[in-house]
């Protein structure tokens, strides 16, 4: 009896914890409300099954516990019952899968009016590149990365000249403007994730991956690296700021274009030929330990 009560407490405790614990997702700041809705649907369907199955176990533990002279019923199978249960389960599964596939369809289909933003990851910092006035990002290659050209932008590509370079962990996005986030890594796997946006994708060296979203409220949110990327993984953070249009544009104007940056680098080279590679604090600290 005590055993049955304890199992019952587990069920009740789970439900209580689910509804009354203070830990729940952060308020959404993107268009992916459908993702949250799918999670809620899944919670309800699976929650009902969880409670029903375990209450049935508790019932059996009480009703059919061993007593003197009791005998179990001999019943090898009950095909009808099993098929019914299979059918019901299939319905439940379809109930979760169908919305899931629809929303996934939206997730993988980037709208035409999305602007591109490139996120460049390396151990253990973030940098960003915006397409500039022509709206097109120049081509790039890991193999031509130098200190002067940290993004590896192809200098011969005319689309690349006006690209805006943001060498900082902070990225700004424009409110209500769909964004296609292009993801690049130059060393290991990383993952660009903002919990309030609900969308993430790994960054794979040698490839460009992407996802899209529309920021739906202004604010400042954490960027976290979400794929183990070495000893500084937990310190690979950044900030994303969602701005109104005006504030966003003035932020963009603060940053140099690729052409300007190259020009500046050439000038600096002529005056100060010996440059030491700048490294992030986390990177230097961690490197010192691993070596």
């Amino acid at each position: 009896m005590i055993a049955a009560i304890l199992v019952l407490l587990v069920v009740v405790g789970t439900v209580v914890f689910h509804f009354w614990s203070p830990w729940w997702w952060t308020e959404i700041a993107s268009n992916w409300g459908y993702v949250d809705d799918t999670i809620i649907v899944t919670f309800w369907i699976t929650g009902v099954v969880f409670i029903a199955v375990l209450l049935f176990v508790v019932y059996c533990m009480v009703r059919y516990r061993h007593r003197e002279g009791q005998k179990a019923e001999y019943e090898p199978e009950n095909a009808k019952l099993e098929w019914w249960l299979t059918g019901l389960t299939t319905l439940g599964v379809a109930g979760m899968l169908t919305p899931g596939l629809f929303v996934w369809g939206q997730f993988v289909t980037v709208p035409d009016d999305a602007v591109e933003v490139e996120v460049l990851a390396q151990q253990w910092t973030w940098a960003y590149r915006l397409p500039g006035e022509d709206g097109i990002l120049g081509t790039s290659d890991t193999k031509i990365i130098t200190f002067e050209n940290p993004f590896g932008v192809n200098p011969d590509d005319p689309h690349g000249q006006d690209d805006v370079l943001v060498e900082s962990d902070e990225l700004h996005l424009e409110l209500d403007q769909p964004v296609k986030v292009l993801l690049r890594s130059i060393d290991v796997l990383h993952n660009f994730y903002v919990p309030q946006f609900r969308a993430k994708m790994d960054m794979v060296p040698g490839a460009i991956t992407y996802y899209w979203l529309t920021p739906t409220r202004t604010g400042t949110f954490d960027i976290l690296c979400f794929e183990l990327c070495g000893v500084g993984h937990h310190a690979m953070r950044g900030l994303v700021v969602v701005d109104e249009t005006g504030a966003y544009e003035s932020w963009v104007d603060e940053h140099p274009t690729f052409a300007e940056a190259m020009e500046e680098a050439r000038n600096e080279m002529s005056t100060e030929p010996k440059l030491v590679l700048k490294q992030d604090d986390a990177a230097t600290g961690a490197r010192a330990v691993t070596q």
Partner: protein
Amino acid sequence: MAYFIPTAAEDVAPAEVAEVDLYHPHSFVTKYVFSQDAKVIAIQYSFTAIAIGLVALVLSWLMRLQLGFPDTFAFISAEAYYQFITMHGMIMVIYLLTALFLGGFGNYLIPLMVGARDMVFPYVNMLSYWIYLLAVLVLLASMFVPGGPTGAGWTLYPPQAILSGTPGSGAGIILMLVSLALFIVGFTMGGLNYVVTVLQARTRGMSLMRMPLTVWGIFVATILALLAFPALFVGAVMMSLDKILGTSFFMPAIVEFGELSDYDGGSPLLFQHLFWFFGHPEVYIVALPGFGIVSDLLATHARRNIFGYRMMVWAIVIIGGLSFIVWAHHMYVSGMNPYFGFFFATTTLIIAVPTALKVYNWILTLWKGNIHLTIPMLFAIGFIVTFVNGGITGLFLGNAVVDVPLSDTMFVVAHFHMVMGVAPILVIFGAIYHWFPKITGRMFNQTLGQIHFWVTFLGAYAIFLPLHYLGLLGVPRRYYEMSDTLFIPESAVTLNAFVSVVALTVGVAQVIFLFNMIWSAYKGKKADPNPWRATTLEWQTPENPPAHGNFGPELPVVYRWAYDYSVPGAKEDFIPQNVPQEEVPNTEGGLGLPMPAAHQPAE
């Protein structure tokens, strides 16, 4: 089906091998060290697996100390933390769970349950254990090389696994890969034995459908392992070459800390596909034996036949087959072609249907039963609770779009610990308690067993349930420390501290188990040969514990399935498999039960 006419002595089917033909040990060394007796090998496998498992347990304490009380323990650096998570994961999945279920329970139970004297190839079986031991030693050695063991996470994703930004990227990762390759070679030897023994060495009358579900689970899991481990092997070999020879199988052009490496053009995703083509079946390699064992525990201790035996067998086979076409659900956000998501989300959710059916049949076995809440039964119920919980969170993560926010969060950690950590380990405990009287000939202490169960079950549940909600909040896995964020409330720190305290308690409670087992093996009450009044053949051996050769001069003959509990008309509430219908004591005080009218031939 080609019929083969045996013409030479060597070609006789193994079931016909007379007892005199068996290998017989002559010294202590051949009997207990280089033994070819599956039961001794099983115990060697189990001891080794549990010993290395204890190392993994201690590693988990260290991780929990860091997560619960960051900035408190100076000796846990970020490097050390990532090494702990990697070693913990690898040991638990491969060196503990796989080895214990297949090498331990497989070796002990398959020959006994199918009525064979031993495995078909005892010598190869012995080699299998020693290679496994070597793999474990190489793994341990990697902890003592310069740079320490690898800290690449148990998934060992390149490029980071072999680059200097990851701890243990020198000798550590190489030894890890060598150890895995050895494990796979050793396992393949054992696996051949399990499959051939089940196929060919069953005793007369033991048709496939009369086998206990434990054997079915281990059998199908072994086939999965034989087909899945090669993928890990291929991945490990190619990654070793990338590391040692500088090839570029998985390594693209990389700028590492400002310098362009010599690697070029490789595909990191190729490794991930290989890894998960192994990695997902691996989940079922651990789960299916657990499914089988828990079915037998429930039936025996509820005194009722397993409900829907045929469906249970079919579900095991179907789950095993489907497990090979769901692997990329681990890769929804890996950067692979996003359109694969539609296919893999669908197959993944389909696999939930046969799995759910198994759960229904377990609880329907309890229904109208005669439930003895023995220690093994409690563990079986604990399994149902944690498995159902972990199974339904799998429906979250298997659905591509729900996985997007949840992947790589604590939700994933909570999910897989519940479903393939806690649940299978509860089965292992239940199974050890269940078969302890058979293995040692003595009974364990009931009170200690009760304490062990409740602390472990309730504690483990209290550890992993809250972690789901931290994941939902957005707390990532594999983070040495969260430090300051804008979205994680202070209360999460308190919750982490609570989880850590519970984890340490549950860990310490395992001492009770170890003490109970060791003490009872020597000082426990002598056990009845069939204390649970079970039907399967291992309980019907002439000696207890069974001697070499298992069944004395004559192999048992099987007349019925493994689940004749509470048969109407029979005097006892169980009929062992080797009792013919004419000799069953009936309620009228005589012998014999009526023959069924309908009789479907087996062949």
